[in-house]
């Protein structure tokens, strides 16, 4: 264990963790939303993210950008970013809807047991990620260097880069808008109603199927944003990127209290930061292991996550 290293690098580890946590948090929203409404783990959400992370690459590729391109000028970067975001968000959203349509809706109509949903979601996840794997020959795909990380703020040894700021700000804005949407809008009210009591919500005239589709869609949109930021931050993507980060995102959702939107944000940021502290303490290879140990410890003390499961009803 390397305590002095942790203390020395406390600042850098924190800011790296926050940026990573912001991505995880956005990704986690998809799990939390679906869980909040359906009480099911959407295992295929990781692939919603994966396709988003490729969608923006494809769009950038259409403009002749690859990992060896030079960084374009500010205006072009902004344009590319918006286009990339748009592509990722659209593809992720469509994928999420597709997953709902193929893997969830038929089972819902048949009143299948909860485990069956998990399995079809696993099937969808396998299908998507493995198809990507075959098409890309399981190689990593590089990301064009749209944003060269440059230090914007330097406090001691803590260097905050423009990319990190972009990621954190974008995540917070997305979260804020979503929170507003769920809590203020009519559609958001429908989501909350179904989450609290599907039967009486149906009696009150809420279209449950539409709410469920909406929830998948929103989760997909958020995952799309997360995917673009992930590409920019990591610089490469691969067919199993969604799966690996998906586990983290789900952990974050559970950590904050699955079904709870703010819990996802808290869980994501906390997970990102603590992971990096653990990496500083034990070495980078233990980064992922640390997050699980953390999860177990927290669940043992607070069995419903840090903030509880507020989107849904209380469970006996």
């Amino acid at each position, binding site marked *: 264990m390397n305590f002095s290293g942790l203390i020395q690098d406390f600042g850098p580890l924190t800011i790296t963790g926050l940026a990573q946590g912001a991505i995880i948090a956005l990704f986690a929203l998809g799990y939390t939303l679906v*869980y909040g409404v359906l009480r099911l*783990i959407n295992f295929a959400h990781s692939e919603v993210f994966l396709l988003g992370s490729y969608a923006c690459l494809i769009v950038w590729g259409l403009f002749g950008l690859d990992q060896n391109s030079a960084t374009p000028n500010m205006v072009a970067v902004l344009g590319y970013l918006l286009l990339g975001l748009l592509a990722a968000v659209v593809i992720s959203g469509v994928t999420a809807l597709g997953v709902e349509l*193929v*893997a969830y809706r*038929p*089972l819902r109509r*048949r009143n*299948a*047991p909860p*485990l*069956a949903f*998990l*399995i*079809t979601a*696993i*099937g*969808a*996840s*396998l*299908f*998507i*990620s*493995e*198809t990507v*794997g*075959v*098409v890309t020959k399981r190689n990593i795909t590089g990301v064009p260097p749209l944003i060269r990380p440059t230090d914007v703020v330097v406090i001691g040894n803590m260097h905050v880069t423009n990319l990190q700021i972009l990621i954190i700000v974008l995540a917070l804005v997305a979260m804020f808008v979503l929170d507003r949407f769920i809590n203020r809008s009519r559609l958001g009210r429908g989501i909350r109603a179904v989450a609290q009591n599907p039967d009486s919500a149906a009696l009150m005239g809420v279209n449950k199927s539409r709410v469920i589709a909406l929830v998948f869609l929103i989760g997909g949109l958020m995952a799309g944003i997360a995917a673009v930021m992930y590409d920019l931050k990591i610089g490469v993507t691969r067919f199993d990127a969604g*799966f690996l980060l998906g*586990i983290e995102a*789900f*952990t974050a959702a*559970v950590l904050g209290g*699955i079904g709870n939107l703010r819990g996802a944000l808290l869980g994501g940021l906390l997970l990102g930061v603590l992971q990096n502290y653990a990496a500083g303490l034990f*070495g980078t*290879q*233990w980064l*992922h*292991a640390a*997050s*699980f*140990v953390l*999860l*177990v410890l927290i*669940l*043992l003390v607070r*069995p419903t996550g840090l903030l509880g499961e507020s989107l849904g009803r209380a*469970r006996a």
Partner: protein
Amino acid sequence: MTTTETPPTGAVPAAEKKNWRTSGGVRGWFGRQHWAVRTVLALVFAAVAYLLPYAGDVPVLGPQIITEGIDWPSALFNMSYYVLLALGLNVVVGFAGLLDLGYVGFFAVGAYTVAMLTSPDSVLHTEWPWLAAIPVALAIAMLSGLILGWPTLRLRGDYLAIVTLGFAEIIRIFATSSETLRGDRGFSDIPHPPGSYADGKPIFGVADATPYYWLGLSVIILVIFGVRNLDRSRVGRSWLAIREDEEAAEIMGVRTIKYKLWAFAIGAFIGGLGGVMFAGQQGFMNSQTFILQFSILVLAGVVMGGSGNLFGAILGGALISYIPDRLRGIEDPIFHTDLFGFRFAIFGLVIIAIMIFRPQGLIPSRRRAMELKDREKEVAPQ
């Protein structure tokens, strides 16, 4: 308890009979047969299973069944340890109702323990024979089940799922990163099972996987007997009670934590057994062997086959191994690559299709009316 196996006779109440018929299927039909018929059928089934390595010699049908890109006995051996894993996971998920997404962890524990104790690459330098390592490996696998279960079984189902997933990831990360477990370099020269033919050639060689398959099959049969005994006793009843209403079960005197822990330990034991078999056949393994998709595949097999049903688990376990292996060596018309590369992708579609058309699994679990036996007449004169 031969008495419990005696099928209910004509004295079964009408409602009972109807219930069996409606929940029918293969399993229902099987359950209605006389015990002698069932024994004969089981024996025939076992004989066919033992003869499977020669399936290629069957005219017309044979060549369709056997695999092309991998030799058939090896494919059969792969199936045997997948079936073993499915049987073990079925105890955890199907019987006790605990969603375990990291079952491969126990498989890894079993295999790694064998490797550590037997391989010359190990830091232990014990170089035990394969057989001697088995008890230790199984004990450690069971222990790991208890260690994982003890703090986590108080958690609710969904959380348990993610924690078990994490457990398997931790084991994989540990295998990749720790110097002792050698990461990618792995362990080589893990000894094979003992025994040799009259001419001195080892039974368990590298060329032919048939003996390994027979060994695996024999282990499976033993495991089936053990698991079935458990399922038909108070243990199985307790698991079912926990699954249906945990609090009511506890109020009726069921020690819920104890039985859930047992389910975990038994599942871990069987998973460890699979790992032991695997290590003994492969002779080499490294951290790449135990990918997480593996646990998920086994879970999919169990649920696809019919969670809580032994036959379903066996079928599911066999399919998740057979389908990909069958795809090996077949070229796809679009990308002109080996279809084996698509195995998980195709598998994903198959899983979705099966679950949509048979959400209860291929062979659904049917609650048996076991205890009735021949006292029926006395109880319900008709």
